[in-house]
């Protein structure tokens, strides 16, 4: 069985070598924007306190290299609180903004990537205060996120479609954590 260090080195070699080795479909590189739709759900001890909700995401940034980009990722999701009543059937929103980096490689029309970032999150209401997610007067938290995805480059070199999934954590909101899944459209200028 290969050691973790060896596996990481092999993965890095694949990531760095792939762009050169593959006959990748032409794609623009530079400033890009992404708009995505999907769903967000909580995991961990607060999984039962809110339902999976619709989510939107925006990401803009710059491709420093063909295999690495930096950007700003904005995400918003809306959830029904499922805390013991009352209240009942109430909704709240979660907003996250983070600076992130994305590392990836492309094989023909497909690109594979891993991403991670750090930022700030905001919860719109104290409805989860009943289960200890928010303390009095507390609605912001730093946010960590990490994930990955796959992207399909269409023949127009400016556009691509993608499917991404991210895990996130808000330590200041009682370690609230969740998972996003989103389909997105990317435009590279």
């Amino acid at each position, binding site marked *: 069985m290969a050691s973790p260090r060896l596996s990481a080195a092999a993965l890095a070699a694949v990531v760095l070598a792939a762009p050169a080795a593959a006959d990748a479909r032409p794609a623009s590189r530079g400033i890009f*924007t*992404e*708009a995505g739709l999907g769903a967000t759900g909580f995991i961990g001890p607060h999984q039962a306190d809110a339902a999976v909700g619709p989510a*939107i995401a*925006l990401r*803009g940034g710059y491709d420093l290299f063909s295999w690495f980009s930096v950007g700003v990722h*904005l995400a*918003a999701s*809306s959830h029904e609180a499922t805390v013991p*009543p*009352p*209240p*009942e059937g*109430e909704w*709240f*929103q979660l*907003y996250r903004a983070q600076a992130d980096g994305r590392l990836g490689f492309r094989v023909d029309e497909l690109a594979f990537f891993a991403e991670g970032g750090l930022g700030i999150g905001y919860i*719109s*209401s*104290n*409805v989860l*205060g*009943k289960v200890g997610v928010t303390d*009095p*007067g507390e609605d912001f938290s730093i946010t960590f996120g990490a994930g990955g995805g796959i992207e399909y480059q269409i023949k127009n070199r400016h556009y691509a479609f993608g499917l991404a999934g991210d895990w996130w954590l808000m330590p200041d909101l009682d370690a609230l954590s969740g998972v996003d899944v989103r389909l997105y*459209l990317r*435009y590279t200028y």
Partner: protein
Amino acid sequence: MKLAAIAVFVGLAPLVACAADPQYIQPERGIEVGTGNPDDMGTATETVLLPYDAELLNSTDFQRDREAFLTELNARVEPDVTIDQLPLIRLDQIDVSIEWTIRNLSEEPGEARININGGNQYFVYVPDNFIIDPEDDEEPSPPPLAGNVPIDIPALGDVSGVFREDTLRESALDLDLITRGLINPFAALLNIHEDIKNSSEVVYTPYPPDQDNPPPAPAPMPIEIFAQFVQLDVTFTADRHMVLEYAIRIRDPEGLLHDELLDAPPEELYVFTPAVYTPTLTAP
């Protein structure tokens, strides 16, 4: 560029929508009645003082905004309104609703009622204060500002409901009509006034109704000077061992409530001193 513009619009829309996100005031314990204790009469009342931010309400910016509001109001209403008649918390500055759940802890079905009363910065409404002859057992007291509906609760079951924003807005409006408007509470509470623009649209019916020399009608009050609740009195009555749990939901787009709500330090909360209204009091 069109894609980017659409993306930015889609992204910002929820941020605008969250400007009036509700906050929930949840008393730590529910109201429990029917415990069998000698002092338990099957009814109990809990008063919640809404946690308005003293620093904000005492600020010069807030006072300046009130004066500007008053100047603009007096330019279009007659007679002029004084600063004392303009409440610190106006009716339409916040929206209040109450969500509740009643749990029947007994093994028999029962009936419960929730009465909502309360006060604005001027007066607190207490229905029993309107009884003219305390020795007349048949003289009814006026209804509460909201509620007093019998609710059947199954054995060991629970029932949830809500006093909606429009219901409590009407209650706050009726409270001002009864107290500063000198309207008979029966007339105020049994009619809907949600669309009025001025108290002059409500037929003046002083209380008690059969006075030889009824007080003159007070000056008309434009809807802009009606006051919002600063306290809520929640009364729970049940014929079995039951618990009422409730959450006060407030939409406060102007940020008048303290960020920490009921957990705020007491010295940071605005202290209102409303009078308990009796029909003989003179409105300001």
